[in-house]
């Protein structure tokens, strides 16, 4: 093992393949990262419980599919039905969880004008409660689910294969990302969100209901996490009560990498992190990928202390 600690051939021999793998992995990070970034952009708060919002989404997908009696590789009509049902159910469950978390805990703390650390610890507590509740309810072992979409190679460029699931993941993530970007930048509600992020007091003076905006961003984050949960289920076919912890950590890292509070930064950070991890795992072995992820984070922050694209919903453009 010692002689071959770093295996350049493995990396550069299939660089394209690893990049595609990394992008599809990173897309899910990006979608979850958006939840962190939205909340942080407006409230300057790390919503540690967001990882569990995602986890609940995955369990909802499993539950919905099992209720609908899904089996491995069903007919195409059923696939679409299952995907839609899974998406709706997961988004609803995740969105509801996110909003509930805000209502039950954060709003109270905001009323108290509590310092950020208090929010963080509360979020950690909530995260523990949610994941443990699912651990007790659903068991602590990995939970399988039917393979709804059979993997197939869509097209091949050189020695790089792009599969249908990878394509779905990346495209869905991009669509949602740009949908969100449009929503935030082009609609009236989106303007309200940006206003609260940029200057909460003035936003209130313009008639923006801050509570509603905050509930909205939690909802948006939850919906995206639900969508991410569906993609995750499609791609990995498994979930587990603590699936959110590691993924949430990565997604948060991605958000910081891109510049937390910045929507496009979350996308960039997520994709970049996915690629870095796959490269690092190929170069050495899979158990070093986290080290690589964090080293890249530190290096980026050293040179750009507020992440690649800088902070904040719209503030960076000023």
């Amino acid at each position, binding site marked *: 093992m010692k002689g071959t600690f770093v295996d350049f051939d493995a990396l550069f021999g299939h660089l394209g393949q690893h990049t595609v793998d990394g992008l599809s992995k990173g897309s899910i990070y990006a979608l979850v990262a958006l939840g962190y970034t939205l909340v942080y952009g407006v409230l300057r708060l790390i919503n540690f419980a967001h990882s569990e919002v995602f986890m609940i989404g995955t369990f909802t997908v499993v539950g919905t599919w099992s209720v609908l009696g899904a089996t491995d590789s069903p007919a195409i009509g059923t696939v679409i039905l299952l995907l839609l049902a899974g998406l709706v159910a997961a988004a609803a469950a995740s969105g509801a969880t996110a909003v509930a978390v805000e209502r039950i805990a954060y709003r109270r703390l905001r009323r108290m004008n509590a310092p950020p650390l208090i929010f963080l610890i509360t979020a950690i507590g909530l995260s523990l409660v949610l994941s443990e509740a699912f651990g007790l309810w659903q068991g602590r072992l990995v939970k399988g689910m039917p393979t709804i979409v059979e993997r197939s190679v869509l097209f091949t460029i050189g020695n790089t294969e792009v599969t249908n699931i990878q394509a779905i993941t990346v495209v869905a993530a991009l669509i949602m990302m740009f949908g969100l970007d449009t929503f935030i930048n082009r609609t009236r509600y989106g303007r309200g969100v940006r206003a609260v992020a940029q200057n909460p007091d*003035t936003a209130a003076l313009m008639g923006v209901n801050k509570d509603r905006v905050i509930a909205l961003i939690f909802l948006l984050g939850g919906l995206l996490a639900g969508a991410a949960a569906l993609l995750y289920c499609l791609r990995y076919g498994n979930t587990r009560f603590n699936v959110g912890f590691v993924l949430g950590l990565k997604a948060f890292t991605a958000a910081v990498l891109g510049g937390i509070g910045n929507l496009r930064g979350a996308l960039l950070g997520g994709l970049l992190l996915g690629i870095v991890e796959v490269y690092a795992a190929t170069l050495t072995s899979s158990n070093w990928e986290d080290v690589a992820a964090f080293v890249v984070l530190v290096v980026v922050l050293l040179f750009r202390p507020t992440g690649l694209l800088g902070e904040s919903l719209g503030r960076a453009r*000023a």
Partner: protein
Amino acid sequence: MLLEIDNLTLRYGRIEALHGISITVAEGEIVALIGANGAGKTTTMRAVSGLRPVATGSIKFAGEDITNLRADLRVIRGICQSPEGRGIFPGMTVLENLDMGAYTRRDTSAIASDLDRVFGLFPRLAERRKQAGGTLSGGEQQMLAVGRALMARPKLLLLDEPSMGLAPMVIQQIFEIITEINQQGTTILLVEQNAQQALSRAHRAYVLETGKIVQEGTGQDLLTDSRVRDAYLGVA
């Protein structure tokens, strides 16, 4: 009375910032609050617009008690403030900033005509409608803040230091616009450092000192009052 502030007390932590002030504003008036930095003028404004919780006392708007009403609901009732320091949304364009002013309104066509009106009042803003608010100069930002508040079509317009950081020419302009807005039917509560201008434009005025009202009267009376001249008009 459009606005009645009765015996208002307000605290920052354990420090009392306002000690029982009472102010009234009648429909169609320009009322000015003058006083030194830190006298409590801005705090009063923030209490009226709902940004600061009130300790005791009450605020009534058009007969309705709004003491504990949320800030955004006050906007719907018709109170809009151009805050101190302008409170521009730096990442939004001029147009978006103005649109924020009309956030609570749904009457699209009326909004469009109001937009024209604001651009009419401030041609500079029309020139820069696609520029980010944060990149405007101080004077332009001030125009934007006033214009944005107008976009809410408020019954009561709160202006906090509209002349701050502006060149004398622009100050002159701003005050002319204030008068014009008022003549078009908007009631104005004005906080101003520039006592000379404020008093000469205002129908009535209150003088604040360390959280208390020490004097009130018509603008012209106060303008000629020796104590006010001495304390706030600089040159004796």
